């Protein structure tokens, strides 16, 4: 048994087809096509194929906790969807030996009109528990969720935090052989995250559960995982021990100094050397607090610059510009410079970002740099737990609901 793997992934690939016009063919389109040129119906429409995953092979032994890392769009989520059987692979196969539960979201199927009790049962069965099983764990779930008297009250009256706790409580009491978790720990406040992380640790160490865990947060991966798989552009880039792979990953994305030999070789007038966040005397590339943030860009000027313009853009992983800025200076003589921005705070969602920076002078482009390493944001999340609704800003808040009057009395008058 010990030698046998519990998860075996062999040559898995997933091809998506982007249709040119739209992905939803209408019956009318099909009929028109049949009418106009029946022979063409056999042709495949002009479409673009792309492989979200290709040649993925790995094994997981029972009891291992494996982290999956990679940038957004690297294929991580597709891999999880295949392992959770939500979508089928185009090629290759996966063997799973044992009961699988996947948590791609917490609280799947929660309904606001149903009570906490009803939602526990429904969510539990969706996640693969039998009613009998839920019955036997019911008290433990309610205790963990800590929702007190709200058990028989419809979910719509719950605070966001309460609903989250309830959802995680159900998930934490799943008892599968293999547990697949997708970033679900990235929601809720820090205290709640910690509670979840502790529970995950407890599950893996006490019961020898096999866990596959996707996260952007290296701190969580370091804490939980024995082994890490780094996926990049649909391929496995590295696989191995946690420290080793995360080290490589960070070296790639968080490597500090830029290689300036090419800039000098090309006889540039100036070049950006590095950027960093100044955090209590240290140069870091991780944003982890909502206090003021000093972002520093280091510029080497090799020849005098007349009236230089410095443009800065903060881009998210999808390439969207979240903030852009231009500064103009009279002139910069030869030497090393630091351009320091002091932001009151940066309300960003978790994930990877990059600072694109460029300098122009009167004669045109001097240097354009895409600001490696990327900036990693690990702030507590104040956003909707579902990606679809979370938006791009992560605005910290204090929330209060006040009842000002009783509506029926008011209306009657």
């Amino acid at each position, binding site marked *: 048994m010990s030698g046998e793997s519990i998860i075996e992934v062999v040559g898995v690939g997933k091809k998506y087809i982007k249709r040119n016009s739209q992905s939803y063919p209408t019956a009318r389109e099909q009929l028109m096509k049949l009418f106009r040129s029946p022979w063409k119906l056999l042709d495949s429409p002009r479409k673009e194929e792309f492989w979200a995953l290709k040649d993925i092979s790995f094994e997981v032994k029972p009891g291992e906790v494996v982290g999956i890392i990679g940038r957004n769009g690297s294929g991580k989520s597709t891999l999880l969807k*295949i392992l959770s059987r939500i979508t089928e*692979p185009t090629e290759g196969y996966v063997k799973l*030996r044992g009961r699988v539960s996947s948590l791609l979201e917490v609280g799947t*199927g929660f309904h606001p009109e*149903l009570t906490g009790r*009803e939602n526990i049962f429904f969510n539990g069965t969706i996640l693969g528990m039998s009613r009998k099983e839920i019955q036997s764990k019911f008290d433990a779930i309610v205790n963990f969720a800590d929702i007190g008297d709200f058990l028989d009250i419809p979910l719509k009256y719950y605070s966001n935090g309460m609903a989250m706790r309830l959802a995680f409580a159900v998930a934490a009491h799943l008892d599968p052989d293999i547990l697949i978790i997708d970033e679900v720990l990235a929601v809720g406040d820090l205290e709640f995250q910690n509670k979840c992380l502790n529970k995950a640790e407890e599950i893996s160490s006490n019961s020898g559960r096999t866990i596959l865990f996707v996260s952007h947060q290296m701190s969580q991966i370091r804490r939980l995982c024995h082994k890490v798989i780094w996926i990049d552009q649909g391929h496995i880039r590295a696989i191995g021990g946690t420290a080793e792979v995360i080290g490589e990953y960070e070296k790639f994305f968080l490597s500090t100094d830029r290689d300036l030999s090419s800039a000098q070789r090309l006889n540039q007038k100036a070049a950006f050397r590095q950027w960093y966040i100044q955090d209590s005397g240290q140069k870091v590339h991780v944003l982890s607090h909502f206090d003021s943030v000093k972002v520093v860009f280091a510029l080497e000027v090799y020849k005098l610059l007349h009236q230089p313009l410095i443009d800065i853009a903060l881009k998210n992983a999808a390439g969207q510009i979240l903030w852009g800025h231009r500064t103009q200076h009279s002139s910069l003589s030869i030497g090393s410079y630091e351009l320091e921005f002091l932001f009151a705070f940066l309300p960003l969602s978790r994930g990877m970002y990059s600072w694109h920076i460029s300098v122009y002078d009167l004669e045109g482009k001097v240097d354009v740099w895409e600001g490696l390493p990327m900036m990693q944001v690990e702030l507590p999340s104040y956003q909707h737990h579902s990606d679809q609704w979370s938006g791009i800003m992560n605005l910290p808040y204090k929330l209060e609901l006040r009842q000002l009057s009783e509506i029926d009395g008011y209306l009657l008058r």
Partner: protein
Amino acid sequence: MLEEIIIKPRQGLRIDLKEIWQYRELLYSLVLRDIKIRYKHTAIGVGWVLLQPLAMMLLFTLFFGRFIKTSTNEMPYAVFALSGAVVWAYFSNAINNAANSLQQYKYIISKVYFPRLILPIVGVSVGAIDFAISLALLMVILLFYGVTLKLTLLALPLVSIAVIFVSFSVGVWLSALNAIYYDIRYILPFLIQLWLFASPVVYPVSVVPEKWQMYYYLNPLVGLLEGFRWCLSGVGAIPNSFWVSIGIAILLSIGGVTYFRRVESTLADLL
């Protein structure tokens, strides 16, 4: 013993009935949840179940009762109309629910695995409770009109199950088509209306000209309604048309389930 799951591109179109059985608790949960949510949203709750067929019976009796002179299987027209209305109300709701089931649950489809065929089954099952309640109403009306209850009434539960099966055979097609073609949701209300007129709900089969009856019986609701009313009237043996309906429904569901299976493999990518 560890169960082993192999995930690979599926080639065959075989439907794993055993798997659906394994997921029966989810099926039950989904049905229960749907029913609960529905009644929490409405003011008179279960009342609607009785109101819909009763209103139909009243309307039919007022507007059609006097025009339809031909025999209605030796039962008062009101009873004839109500029996049609009860079956029709269930059938139209069931195929409508089934058709929308994949859309309705797409947020679950994209997050959790389960055999997707459960969803159209849920769609036709949710109304089964209402159907049972309206059958009870039908019994009351039978007694009210002084119709003598025949022994054939004992077959009513079985014929009712056939009604659910026929609805499934149509619903499974609609659910898969609706996932692929956007048009289905616009065609559906029209289709349901047309189907009402093409079925002996308000009128007996005998008003249909004889030369067309052969085609008429291709509509599985025709034999189904004749079988259903036979249980109430108890005249003669169960009509052959009932078995024709069952045969058509079996063919429809084999085709529908196979087609559903084909759509299923790309479902998460489509929705």
